[in-house]
């Protein structure tokens, strides 16, 4: 059984409170710091929202080196192969990297994505 409200719901109400009750009374460096705090809270909330899709996107990238590494970090192995030119202009890898980047970029700032990309990332078409 999970306690309610959930972590994302707490982040949401904390963010709303910060923006409505605290930020308007601040100025200068304090306002800047409070807005950074608000931004960090939104990123953390979105990260939970997109976690399932982000996991799948990460796995899709790792498939390119599946079975090729006996030990060590498989992402590092992929990096090495990209450096060696083994994936030059490879459309499938490019697509997987792009899917992953869309989710991560949308987590950071949804406004950098098109509405279609926001849906793909699991963020919904509107700017939250």
């Amino acid at each position, binding site marked *: 059984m999970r306690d309610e409200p959930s972590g994302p719901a707490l982040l949401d109400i904390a963010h709303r409170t910060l923006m409505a009750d605290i930020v308007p009374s601040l100025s200068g460096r304090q306002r800047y710091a409070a807005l950074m705090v608000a931004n960090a809270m939104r990123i953390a909330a979105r990260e939970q929202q997109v976690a399932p899709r982000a996991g799948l996107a990460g796995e899709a990238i790792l498939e390119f080196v599946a079975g090729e590494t006996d030990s060590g970090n498989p992402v590092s192995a992929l990096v090495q192969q990209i450096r060696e030119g083994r994936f030059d202009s490879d459309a499938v890898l490019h697509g997987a990297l792009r899917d992953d980047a869309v989710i991560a970029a949308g*987590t950071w700032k949804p406004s950098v994505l098109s509405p279609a990309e926001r849906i793909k990332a699991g963020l919904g078409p509107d700017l939250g």
Partner: protein
Amino acid sequence: MDPQRVNALQSWLGRALSESSITIDDVRKLDGGAIQENWRVRCSVGGINADKRGFVLRRDAQTTIASSRTRAQEYAIIEAAHHAGVRVATPLAACDDPEVIGAPFFLMRWVDGVSLGPRIVKDTTLGGDRMQLGEQLGRELARIHGIRMPQASLSFLGEPDTDPVGSAIGNLRATLDRLGAARPALEWGLRWADVHAPPRSSPTLVHHDFRTGNYIVDEQGLAAILDWEFAGWGDPMSDLGWFCAECWRFGRPDLEAGGVAPRAAFYQGYEAESGSPVDDDAVRFWEMFAHLRWAVIALEQAERHLSGREPSLELALTGRIVPELELAVLKATEPGRWRRAP
């Protein structure tokens, strides 16, 4: 700054500026400056009817990233730019002695205006006529690129790279390795750069961080070019690419010259001042590369927080910029844009 250091600074100012009577009225740290700290120093010079003067003091932050020059070197570069007619805050004196205020620093004349990139882009009451601002920025950059070897005062810059693209790629890969950052999207972009490097331009002094956010404007126009710590010999087209890169347009992707003017105005000013045509293909290459470079710098800044050396929300958030830059790189280097595409 603690009172003991303010007193030491006051004594140093008197000697450096050859002023027998100088009093520091106020010392205040300015916002920004993740790599270096900037302080505003207000002084009274002379006894009765004292002359009020303002200065900027620039010193190392608690930790600096690896690609940053020393303050003495940055001061020498600003002096060279000043002599070449580049609009900079007038350099006044430098201090290598860390005992005075805890770290080496240098002093420039205060320049009124605004440097915050997003504000310059949004507030069109700043910077004067925007077409003229774009052209003026092109002219200033051409003046910087007019500084060529040999320059005795800049001997610390060493010899220019014979393979600037290869070295830039190698440096970014080395930094990623040092950070332990396995980022396939950045590697994809670096590999594209490897395959599509433009022909080398004749080396000049390159600012290496010439962008909106690193110059001051007032209501009339451009007031000063700032932040010279990355300058060195290099490919001049890399500066144009950095300036035009979408990541430095602050929400105005349509204004390709730093979010403030059309690209044509910037190129026009550059070509008029330099007497040479802009290599547009090379600039576009360096624009893509700008995203790679900024992404690696962002990872370095995030590491300052992650390592525990300098806990900072601002540095932590900087690390989260990286995927936006990776997406821009991937869009600019789609499989159909590879020269060797099947």
